[in-house]
C-alpha cells in the first residue's frame, strides 16, 4: 500500500472493553500489593491482601493477553495500514526510552552515592563535616563493607566486584559468564531475525530456542549469584548502601530479563504457529529491541557495578 493512500484509511478501532477492565485489574493489583506490604510491616495476616493482589494481577494479565491477541488478529485480517504500523514502531521506541530513563535513575543514584555521598560521609571536603561529627570512625570505601552505623545496617562480609584483572579470576567469575551469555543471546536473536527475513523458518526456530535457553540460563545463574550474595557474602537488601544499589540495579535488570524471556517465549510460540512474514513482523522486532536494550543495560551494570 502506497503511503500517500495510507492516510485515507487509518484504522480507528471500535469501542474496546480492555482498557477499562485492565485499569480495574491494575487497581486491585497495586492495592493488594500495598496491603501485603503494610500487613507484613504491621505483623498482620496477608491472606486477604494476597488474594486481592493475585485477583488483580490475573485480571490484568488476562486482559493484556486478549488485547495483544486482538491486535495480532486485526493485523492478520489486514486492518493495519502502513501508518498504523509506524505508530507501533514509534510507540515501542519511546517506551524503550522511558525504560532507559528508569534505569538512569538507579544508575544516577549509584554514581551519586559512590562519588559524592560516601566520600562526604568519610569526611571529605566541606560537606564532610557532618560525617566527621556523626561517625568519626567511618572510612569511605567502595564496595562499602563497613557501614557508618553497623548496628542499624549489618555489614556485608565482602563485595561482589572484580578483585583482580586476570584470566584466572574472570574464568571463575559468574557475572563475567553472565555477560558472555547475555551478549551471545543478543547475537543469536539477531540471527533469528535474519533467518525470519530470509524466510528460513527452521533456522528461525533454532535460533529462537537458543536465545530463550540463554535467557533462562542467565536467570538461573543470576539466582545462583543472589543465593551466594545472601549466604556467602552477607550482602542483603538491608546490609547498607552497597547491597541496596546492587540488588535494585541487578534486581530490576533481572526483572526485565524475566519479562524479556517471557516475551521471547511468546514470540517463539508465535513462530511455531507460523506467525510473522519477512516484510511484516514488528511484534518480533519490538521483542528483539527490548532484548537488545536489556542487554545494553547489563553491559552498563557489568561495568559500573562489578568492574569499576
Amino acid at each position, binding site marked *: 500500500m502506497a503511503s500517500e493512500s495510507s492516510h485515507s484509511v487509518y484504522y480507528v478501532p471500535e469501542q474496546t*472493553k480492555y*482498557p477499562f477492565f485492565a485499569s480495574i485489574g491494575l487497581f486491585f493489583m497495586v492495592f493488594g500489593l500495598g496491603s501485603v506490604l503494610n500487613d507484613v510491616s504491621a505483623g498482620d495476616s496477608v491472606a486477604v491482601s494476597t488474594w486481592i493482589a493475585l485477583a488483580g494481577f490475573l485480571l490484568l494479565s488476562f486482559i493484556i493477553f486478549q488485547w495483544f491477541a486482538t491486535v495480532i488478529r486485526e493485523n492478520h485480517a489486514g486492518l493495519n495500514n502502513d501508518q498504523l504500523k509506524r505508530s507501533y514502531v514509534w510507540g515501542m521506541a519511546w517506551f524503550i*526510552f522511558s*525504560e532507559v530513563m528508569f534505569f538512569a535513575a538507579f544508575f544516577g543514584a549509584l554514581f551519586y552515592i559512590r562519588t*559524592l555521598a560516601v566520600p562526604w560521609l568519610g569526611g571529605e571536603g566541606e560537606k564532610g563535616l557532618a560525617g566527621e561529627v556523626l561517625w568519626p570512625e567511618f572510612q569511605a570505601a567502595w564496595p562499602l563493607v563497613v557501614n557508618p552505623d553497623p548496628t542499624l545496617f549489618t555489614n556485608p562480609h565482602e563485595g561482589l566486584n572484580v578483585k583482580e584483572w586476570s584470566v584466572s579470576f574472570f574464568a571463575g567469575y559468574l557475572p563475567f559468564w553472565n555477560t558472555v551469555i547475555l551478549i551471545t543471546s543478543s547475537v543469536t536473536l539477531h540471527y533469528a531475525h535474519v533467518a525470519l527475513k530470509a524466510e528460513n523458518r527452521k533456522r528461525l526456530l533454532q535460533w529462537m530456542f537458543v536465545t530463550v535457553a540463554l535467557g533462562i540460563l542467565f536467570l538461573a545463574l543470576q539466582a545462583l549469584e543472589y543465593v551466594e550474595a545472601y549466604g556467602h557474602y552477607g550482602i542483603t537488601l538491608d546490609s547498607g548502601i552497597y547491597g541496596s544499589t546492587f540488588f535494585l540495579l541487578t534486581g530490576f535488570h533481572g526483572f526485565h530479563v524475566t519479562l524479556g524471556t517471557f516475551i521471547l517465549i511468546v514470540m517463539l510460540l508465535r513462530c511455531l504457529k507460523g506467525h510473522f512474514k519477512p516484510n511484516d513482523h514488528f511484534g518480533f522486532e519490538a521483542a528483539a529491541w527490548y532484548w537488545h536494550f536489556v542487554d545494553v543495560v547489563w553491559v552498563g551494570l557489568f561495568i559500573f557495578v562489578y568492574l569499576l
Partner: protein
Amino acid sequence: MSSAAIDHAHDHDHHHGPAKGISRWLFTTNHKDIGTLYLWFSFAMFLLGGTFALVIRAELFQPGLQFVEPNFFNQMTTMHGLVMVFGAVMPAFVGLANWMIPLMIGAPDMALPRMNNWSFWILPFAFTLMVSTLFMEGGGPNFGWTFYAPLSTTYAPDSVTYFIFAVHIMGASSIMGAINVIATILNMRAPGMTLMKMPLFVWTWLITAYLLIAVMPVLAGVVTMMLFDIHFGTSFFNAAGGGDPVLFQHLFWFFGHPEVYIMILPAFGIVSAIIPTFARKRLFGYDSMVYATASIAFLSFIVWAHHMFTVGMPLAGQLFFMYATMLIAVPTGVKVFNWVATMFRGAMTFETPMLFAIAFVVLFTIGGFTGVMLAITPADFQYHDTYFVVAHFHYVLVPGAVFSLMAAAYYWLPKWTGYMYDETLGKLHFWMSFVGVNLLFFPQHFLGLAGMPRRIPDYALQFANFNWISSVGAFLFGFSQLILLLVVIKCIRGGKKATAQVWEGAQGLEWTVPSPAPYHTFETPPDPSLIKAQ
C-alpha cells in the same frame, strides 16, 4: 492486504456516531470523548484540590489553631499539591491535547486509540487510591507534595505505601499518554502539515511529551527506592547505611523541574493560539517560539538543584545551577516579547479567552521575575521555604497554567459544543478570578519576604493582616470557579449557534470543521491548501 477488508472496517467504524449510555464513556476510543473525559476529570480534581486549599486558607485566616489539627493541616498541603499537579493541571492539558491535536494536524484520531482510553481510565483509580489514604488509620501523606525523605520514609504514615503505588500507576498513565501524543504528532500529520507549519500548541505538546517520557520514569524510580527503604530495609536515603537523604532531593527534582515545564509549555502553546486570533495578526516570531520552547525544555534538565541551595552543595554547584537557571529567563523572555509584539498594533478585541490570555502574559511574567529572584543563590538562602516561594510558584501555576486552561476552555468551547458560551458570565468569571487570584497570592510575597515559613498551620501575629487578605482572595477565587462550571453546563445545553470559524481572526484546521466538531473528523486528509504557515 485486501482493500475490501479495509473498506469494510472503514464503513463499519466511521459512519456512526457515539455509542449510547455509559459504555460510550467507559469503552470509547474516540479522541474527542477521551479529551472530554480528561477535561471533566481534571475539573473535578481542580474543585477537590481547591477545597483542600480552602481548608488551608481557612486555618490561616487568623493566627492560632482554629479548625484543624497540625497533622491534618500537613495532609491538606500535601494532598492539595498532589491533586492539583497530577490530577488537575496535567490531565487538563492531556485532555486539550486529545481534543485539539488531531483536529489541528488533520488526523482522524490519536495514533493509538485503545491505549489512549487506558491512559485516561487509570487516573480515576489512581486518585481513588491516593485520596482514600485520607480516611486510613494514621492519616494520609503529610510530608508535602515533594515527599522529601526521611519525612516520607522513616517518619511517614503507613498510607505512604498506597501513595507510592498511586504515583506508579499515574506515572504509567502519563507515559502512555505522552507516547500517544508523540506518535500522533510524528506520524499522523496530514500531507502538507510540515513540522514548521504545526500550530504552537502542537509543538509545545510534542516537547512536553518528550519531557514526560524522560522524567516520569525517574519519579517511578525514586518512589521505588522509597518503597524499598520503607519495607525492605535498603538505605538509599539513610546515611547510617551509607545513603543520603539529599539523594532523594536530587532525584526528585530531576523529575520535578522538568515537571514544572510540563505544566507550562502547553500553556505557552494555548496563549500563542489565542493572542493572534484576537489581535487579528499572525503570531510574531513563530520560529523563535519553537526554538525557545526547545531551549526551555533542554535547560529544564540542568537546573534542578536550584530547589536545594540551602541543603548544602559545593560552591561550583551553586554557581552552575544559579547561572543555568537564570538562562531560562532568555527563551522565556523571547516568548513574552513575541506575545506582546503580536498584540502591538493589532485590531484587538477582548473576549473572555483573550482576557485570560493577556492576564496570563502579565501575571505569568510576575511569577517569572520572582523565579529569577529565587535563582540568585545568596538571596535564595533568605527566601527558601518561605511564603515567597509559595507566591512564586502559585503565580506561574494559577494565573499561569490554570488561566491558560480557562482561556483554552472558553476559546474552544464553541468548537466542542456548537454553541457560544455566555460572554457576560465569562467576563464575570474572568474579573472575579483575576481580582481573587491577585488578592490571594500577591500578599504572600510580602509574607515570605518578612519571614513567614510555608507549610505551617499557625504563625506569628505580625503576619496576620496579609494572611486574612490572602484568605479572602482564596475564597473569592475558589467560589468564582463555580461560574465556570455554570458557563460550561449552559453552553452544552444551548445558546447562540457557533459558526465553523467561531472567532473572526481564528486560523488553523480546527476551525475548518463544523461546530460542534463531528464525532469523526479528517477521515480523509484535509485539502493541503488549507494548511498555511502560522
